[in-house]
C-alpha cells in the first residue's frame, strides 16, 4: 500500500500521532480500543456504555417508584422529581434503547451481510464517541445545581420538553440547555450511524446477498436507519429553535410575540413517532432472528414480514398527531390521524402473527433467548393492543397523559424493546465473547423480569383509568390509586433484582462460562459460520450467498417432504477454512484517533454556548482538528 503523505508528516506532533496510531494497531490494550475502527469492538463499547446508562436510568426509575409507592411520598420533592423523571425518559430513549440497538447494528450487520467492516469505519467510531460525549454531557447536568443541598441541575421539563415550559422564564437554570444540546450531540451520533448503515447494507453485501436474502434484522436496521436520517433533522431544527429562544431571545415558541407552543409539539412528534419505530424495529429484527433459530424453522412469510417492516417505516410519518389529540386541532385532523393510527396496527399485527407462525410446528428449544423472544411477543402484543385503544380518539381524550399511557409505552419499549434486546444479548453473547451465558440463571432472569415487569406496568393501566395523571410527584390517598402504585413499586424492584441476576450471570460467565463453538445454537445466518469471537477481519474469505438463511442451507438439505437432512460432510460445518493464504489479501482499515478528537469538540462547543464563548472557540478548534486530521489521514496505512 502506497503511503499517502500526510500533512502531519514532517513535524513532531504528526509523527507522534502516527506512532500512536501504529501502537493502537494491536489486539490488546486500552489504546487499541480507543482508536479502534473495528465494528465489533465499537458494538461492544456501545453495548457496555448503554448498559451503564440503563443502570442509571433504572435507578432513576426506582426513585420514582419509591416516591410513588404510597400516597404523599416524601423521598424527593417536586423539583427533584421533575428532574429525575425527565432524565429517566431521556436516558432510556436516547442513551439506552437507541444505543443498544446501535450496538447490535454494529456487531451484527457486517457479519450478517458477509462484510469485513462497515462502509465507513472511522465514521462509525465517530458515532460511538459522539454518543458517549453526548451521554456524559447530558448526565453532567445533574451537577450544575448544588447536589449536596439536594438541588439537582438536570432538565426539568420532561423528555418531550413541551414549550413554553422549556422557556427561560419557566425553566431557569441550565438544565434545559444541557438537555437540548445533549440531544443535539446524540442526534449527530445517530445520524452518522444511520448514514453509515444504509451505505453498508446497500453496498457492502457479499456476492449473492440480494436484498431479499438479507436476514430480517438487516432489513429492520435499514428501515431504522432511514427513519433516523429523515427524522433526526426535524428534531435538530426544533432543538435549535429552542436554543435560539433560550439563548438569544428568539420567539419561536413565545406566545407573547405571536408564536405558538404547538409548533414545538408538531416538530417533536414529527420526529417522535418515527423515533418510536426507531426504538422498536430493531427489536422486531432481533426477535425475527431468534425465533427461527430456536424453532429450527425459517421465518414464516419472510417477504410479508419484510414488507410490513417497510410499511411501518413509511406509515410512521403519518401518525404523529396521535400524540396531540387533546391539543384541539379539530375534528378533521383527529379523525384522519385516528384512522392512520389504526392502520399502522395492521403491519404490526402481521409481524406478531408471522412470529407465531414461525414457532408453530417448529422444534422449539426453550433456552433463554427464546424465552425472552416469546416474552417479547406477549408483552408487545399487550402494548400494541393498548395502542389501538389510543386510536379511538374520544376514548383517548380520557387516557391521554394518564398512567394508562405510561403502561402502554412501557409495554412497547420495555416489554417490547428491552425484552427483545435481552433476547439478543443471550443469543449473540457467545458469538462475541466465545462463552455461553448460563441458561439456568438466564431463565431466572427471564421469569423475574417477566413477573416484575407485569407487576410494575399492568397496574398502571388501572391507575390510569382510575384517573391518575402522569408526572405527578405525589397523590392523595382518596383516589383508589394506592394499591396499584404499591404493586408497581414492588414490581420495579423485582425488575431490578432480575437485572442483578443478569449481571451476576455475566460475571460468572466471564470467569468460567462454557466455551461456545462457532455455532452453539445451530444458527441460520452468516455470523455463525465464523469463529467465536470472530477474527478482526470477520471472514477469511468473503462468502458467496445462495439463499436466505444461507448458513442453514450449508448444513442441511431438504428431502422430498420438506424435512431437513443434515449434510454429512464436515467441511460445510467447519468454521471458515484457513485458505486465506492463497486467496485475497485482507485489507483492514487502520485505527484512528481523529474520530474521538472530533467527538470531544461537541460537548466543548455546547458548554461554551451555555457558559463562555471562549470554550466554544476551543471546542470548534478541536472539532476542526479532528475533522481535518480525519479527512487528510489515509484510511489504511501499512
Amino acid at each position, binding site marked *: 500500500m502506497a503511503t499517502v503523505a500526510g500533512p502531519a508528516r514532517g513535524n513532531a506532533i504528526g509523527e507522534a500521532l502516527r506512532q500512536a496510531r501504529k501502537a493502537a494497531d494491536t489486539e490488546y490494550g486500552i489504546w487499541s480500543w480507543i482508536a479502534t475502527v473495528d465494528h465489533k469492538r465499537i458494538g461492544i463499547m456501545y453495548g457496555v456504555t448503554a448498559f451503564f446508562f440503563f443502570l442509571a436510568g433504572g435507578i432513576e426509575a426506582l426513585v420514582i417508584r419509591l416516591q410513588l409507592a404510597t400516597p404523599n411520598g416524601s423521598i424527593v420533592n417536586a423539583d427533584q422529581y421533575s428532574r429525575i423523571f425527565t432524565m429517566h425518559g431521556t436516558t432510556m430513549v436516547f442513551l439506552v434503547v437507541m444505543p443498544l440497538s446501535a450496538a447490535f447494528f454494529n456487531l451484527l450487520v457486517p457479519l450478517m451481510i458477509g462484510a*469485513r467492516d462497515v462502509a*465507513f469505519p472511522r465514521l462509525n467510531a465517530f458515532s460511538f464517541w459522539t454518543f458517549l460525549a453526548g451521554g456524559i454531557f447530558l448526565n453532567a447536568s445533574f451537577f450544575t445545581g448544588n447536589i449536596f443541598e439536594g438541588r439537582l441541575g438536570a432538565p426539568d421539563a420532561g423528555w418531550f420538553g413541551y414549550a413554553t415550559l422549556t422557556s427561560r422564564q419557566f425553566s431557569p437554570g441550565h438544565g434545559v440547555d444541557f438537555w437540548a444540546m445533549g440531544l443535539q450531540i446524540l442526534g449527530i451520533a445517530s445520524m452518522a450511524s444511520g448514514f453509515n448503515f444504509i*451505505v453498508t447494507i446497500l453496498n457492502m453485501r457479499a456476492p449473492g446477498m440480494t436484498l431479499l436474502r438479507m436476514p430480517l434484522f438487516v432489513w429492520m436496521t435499514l428501515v431504522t436507519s432511514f427513519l433516523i436520517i429523515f*427524522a433526526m433533522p426535524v428534531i435538530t431544527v426544533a432543538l435549535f429553535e429552542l436554543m435560539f429562544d433560550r439563548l438569544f431571545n428568539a420567539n419561536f415558541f413565545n406566545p407573547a410575540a405571536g408564536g405558538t407552543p404547538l409548533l414545538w409539539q408538531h*416538530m417533536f412528534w414529527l420526529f417522535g413517532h418515527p423515533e418510536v419505530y426507531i426504538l422498536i424495529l430493531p427489536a422486531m429484527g432481533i426477535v425475527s432472528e431468534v425465533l427461527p433459530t430456536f424453532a429450527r424453522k425459517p421465518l414464516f412469510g419472510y417477504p410479508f414480514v419484510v414488507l410490513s417492516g417497510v410499511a411501518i417505516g413509511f406509515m410512521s410519518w403519518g401518525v404523529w398527531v396521535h400524540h396531540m389529540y387533546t391539543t384541539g386541532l379539530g375534528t378533521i385532523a383527529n379523525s384522519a390521524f385516528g384512522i392512520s393510527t389504526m392502520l399502522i396496527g395492521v403491519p404490526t399485527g402481521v409481524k406478531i402473527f408471522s412470529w407465531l407462525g414461525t414457532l408453530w410446528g417448529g422444534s422449539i428449544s426453550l433456552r433463554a433467548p427464546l424465552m425472552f423472544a416469546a416474552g417479547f411477543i406477549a408483552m408487545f402484543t399487550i402494548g400494541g393492543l393498548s395502542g389501538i385503544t389510543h386510536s379511538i380518539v374520544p376514548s383517548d381524550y380520557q387516557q391521554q397523559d394518564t398512567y394508562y399511557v405510561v403502561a402502554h409505552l412501557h409495554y412497547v419499549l420495555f416489554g417490547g424493546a428491552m425484552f427483545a434486546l435481552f433476547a439478543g444479548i443471550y443469543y449473540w453473547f457467545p458469538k462475541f465473547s466465545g462463552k455461553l451465558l448460563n441458561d439456568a440463571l438466564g431463565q431466572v432472569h427471564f421469569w423475574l423480569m417477566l413477573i416484575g415487569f407485569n407487576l410494575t406496568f399492568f397496574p398502571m393501566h388501572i391507575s390510569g383509568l382510575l384517573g391518575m395523571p402522569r408526572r405527578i410527584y405525589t397523590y392523595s390517598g382518596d383516589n383508589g390509586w394506592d394499591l396499584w402504585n404499591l404493586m408497581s413499586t414492588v414490581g420495579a424492584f423485582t425488575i431490578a433484582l432480575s437485572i442483578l441476576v443478569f449481571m451476576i450471570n455475566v460475571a460468572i460467565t466471564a470467569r468460567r462460562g462454557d466455551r461456545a463453538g462457532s455455532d452453539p445454537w445451530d444458527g441460520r445466518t452468516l455470523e455463525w459460520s465464523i469463529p467465536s469471537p470472530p477474527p478482526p477481519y470477520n471472514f477469511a474469505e468473503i462468502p458467496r450467498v445462495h439463499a436466505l438463511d444461507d448458513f442453514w442451507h450449508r448444513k442441511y438439505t431438504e428431502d422430498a417432504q420438506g424435512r431437513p437432512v443434515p449434510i454429512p460432510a464436515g467441511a460445510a460445518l467447519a468454521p471458515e477454512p484457513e485458505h486465506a493464504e492463497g486467496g485475497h489479501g485482507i485489507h483492514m482499515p487502520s485505527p484512528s484517533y481523529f474520530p474521538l478528537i472530533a467527538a470531544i469538540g461537541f460537548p466543548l462547543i455546547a458548554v461554551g454556548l451555555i457558559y463562555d464563548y471562549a470554550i466554544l472557540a476551543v471546542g470548534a478548534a478541536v472539532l476542526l482538528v479532528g475533522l481535518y486530521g480525519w*479527512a487528510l489521514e489515509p484510511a489504511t496505512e501499512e
Partner: protein
Amino acid sequence: MEHAAAGSGHLETSTGLDNRKLLMWLFLGSECLFFGSLIAAYLLYRDRSLGPPFPSDRVFNGVHYEGLFDIPFTSVSAFVLLMSSVTMVLALAAIQRGNRRSMQVWLLTTALLGTLFVSGQAYEFTVFHREGLSLGSNLFGTTFFVLTGFHGAHVTIGVLILLSLLAMSFQGRIQQKDSLNVELAGLYWHFVDVVWIVIFTLVYLIQP
C-alpha cells in the same frame, strides 16, 4: 475533503455505486428535512408578527411601514449563487478531463462567488439590524434570521470545503482519478444553491 474510508476488501460494491457518493446523496436527502423544517417554521409565522419591522410594505395600526426586503439586491445575490453553481460544475468537468489548472481557476471562482454571496448576506443582515430587526424583535426576525442564517452557514462551510480542495490540488493531491472529491463537494454546493432557489421564491418573491 469528505471523510471516508473505502471499505475493507471490497473494491466493488454490491450496487456498483460509490460509497461516498451514496453517503453524500443520503446526507442531502436528510438535509431536505432540515431545511424543510426551517422553511415550514418561516411559512407558519409569515405575516403573524405582532409588530414592525415587516418584510414588505404594510400598514399596521394605521401606520405605514416600509418593507425591509430589497428585491433588486437579493436578486443579484441569488444570481451570484446561481452562477457559482455553473462555475462549480465547470470545475468538475475540467478535472474529469484532467485539466487541473482549469479546475483550480473554476474552484477559486466558485469560492469567490460564494464569499460574495455570504458578504451580501452579512450586509443585508446589518442593514436589517439597523432597521430594528433582530432575533427577538418579532416573529419575522426570528424565523428570517434563523432560516437564512443556517443557509449562510451552509454556504460558508461550502466555501471552506472548496478552499480545502483548492489547497489539496495545489499540493497535487487532486488528480483526474480523484475527481470524485470535486464531485462530492459540487453536490453539496449545488444543493445549497438549490435551497436558495426555494428560499428566494418562498421568502422574498412571494409576499402575502
